[in-house]
């Protein structure tokens, strides 16, 4: 009988701890499929964040390092400089990447560090129980914005792909979503393109993935997908924000 679907080799047998309806599982799977297809697992080192994906080091079958909150791009930089022939990626959430780790994110990007960042944006701090994230939308209710995010006092959400796309060190920046089968296919292409850019030494690559958090949004998984489409995609438009993967950022005209 023909095998039409099987577990990826780049994931271990350890069951995910993610909540029902959370899209981390899909995103893990996409990264793992790409590592398998590009035959990279043996020479890849992943860096796990602090946040819901903290246990990513148990799930990915490549060598893994657990970083402090926000520091994954700095850790990845150290790994890449020590082992330039390896493939290095970080897997980070919005609090990790866009709040406490903003400096590490921006400066690894501006150095054109030849690493790949998978950035999971679900507009909330999931692991600590649903507080405001840097990407929480205006008016969005969270545990620490109980009356909705008031931009007069809490400021505005950060659009990471737009911001990073202004930096010369960034070779590739794309925002995708995993809310539909079609978008999942697009997301996978983006992840593959990001890793391929790194294999070819083109510079910093980032894929921002809009993700759901049904538990902390207080919605069912289906409602959460609808909420993402109705609220997140308009604020965080999908698409390619930067693509210098032809020449790479290390090339000087």
């Amino acid at each position, binding site marked *: 009988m023909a095998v039409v679907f099987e577990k990826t080799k780049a994931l271990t047998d350890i069951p995910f701890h993610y909540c029902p309806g959370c899209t981390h599982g899909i995103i893990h799977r996409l990264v793992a499929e790409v590592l398998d297809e590009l035959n990279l697992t043996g020479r890849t080192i992943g860096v796990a964040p602090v946040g819901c994906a903290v246990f990513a080091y148990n799930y990915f079958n490549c*060598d893994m390092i657990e970083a402090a909150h926000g520091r994954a791009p700095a850790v990845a930089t150290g790994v890449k400089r020590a082992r330039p022939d390896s493939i290095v990626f970080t897997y980070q959430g919005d609090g990790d990447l866009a709040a406490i780790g903003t400096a590490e994110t921006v400066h690894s990007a501006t150095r054109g560090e030849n690493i790949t960042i998978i950035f999971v944006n679900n507009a909330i701090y999931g692991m600590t129980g649903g507080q405001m994230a840097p990407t929480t939308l205006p008016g969005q209710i969270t545990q620490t914005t109980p009356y909705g995010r008031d931009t007069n006092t809490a400021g505005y959400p950060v659009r990471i792909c737009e911001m990073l796309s202004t930096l010369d060190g960034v070779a590739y920046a794309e925002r995708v979503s995993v809310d539909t089968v079609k978008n999942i296919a697009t997301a996978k292409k983006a992840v593959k393109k990001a890793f391929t850019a790194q294999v070819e030494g083109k510079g910093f690559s980032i894929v921002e993935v809009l993700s759901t958090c049904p538990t902390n949004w207080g919605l069912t998984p289906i409602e959460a997908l609808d909420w993402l489409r109705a609220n997140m995609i308009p604020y965080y438009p999908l698409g390619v924000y930067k693509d210098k993967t032809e020449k790479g950022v290390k090339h000087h005209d």
Partner: protein
Amino acid sequence: MADKVLMKGNEALAEAAIKAGCRHFFGYPITPQTEISAHMSKRMPKIGGTYLQAESEIAAINMVLGAAAAGVRAMTSSSSPGISLKSEGVSYIAGSDLPCLIIDVMRAGPGLGGIQPSQSDYWQVTRALGHGDFQLLVFAPSTVQEMVDFVFDAFDMADKYRMPAVILADGMLGQMMEPVEFRRGDVTDLPEKPWAACGHQNKREHNIVNSLYIDPPALEKLVQERYKKYEQIKETEQKAEEYLTEDADIIVVAYGASARIVKSAVNSARKLGLKAGMIRPITLWPFPDKVITRRADTAKAFLAVEMSMGQMVDDVRLAVGGKKPVHFFGRTGGIIPTPAEVLEQIKTILGGAK
């Protein structure tokens, strides 16, 4: 083996690190350690190494974590306020059982403090360079030659015990010039690191470098095992210099640059017929308590001299264990004590002679 060359302490230390096999330096500019970074930025590109000026002290120490996790000899250097910023990363490095080298060229604090020499990071480095139960190997050079020699020892012991090592110098040692000899040549036979996250090449299970243990009994067991290692280190790795302690009535305890001043004061005291001696801790952790405890039986009094308001003196008191009085003299704020001031203290303690 090698010729003597005249070098500034900071530069000598940096060159020693290269000779010790370090090819990965991550730093951030801060006075008075900047010559280390400058030397690395000049040398590393010529020898295929990495010099990376990070965006912050926090990023620099986490880059060290990444490089150390990937199995190479990695280091960073800073001075007191920068070391405070690094403490998060140091805790994670210790909790992940990674070896690395951290240089602290101390300046005066607290806060922005000043840029003149100080020894007021003793507590920070020997007690609490980050959250959690852990220790660091801490070496205190007092000559430019030791700035060189201890780099090799620090990297070797960090690798041997899989823990971070600190060289605790001060602005005086960093900035002074002295003749040095590179007694060890280029180290090439670095130890194997089978635990490193460097890509498994599909030949072994995946390695995980991690400090998270969500299960309390598992974490307690791991920390207890680490403390067994610390006990072993305390047993075997204490180092101190003893100077004229055999018949000494008063033993002055001082490390680093302060020990140079104390040695002059001890010599002056001897010329006056006063039986003074010195114990100079070389390892600050493990603190050389055995030699102090032993001398507590023969000496009549101890005097700790530091460029601080009194930090190491706590360890001296613990080692003396109440057997003899322990006095303290210190200058702080970037002021270096003079031999005459120390001699006055010795005279006063030995019978009130003025």
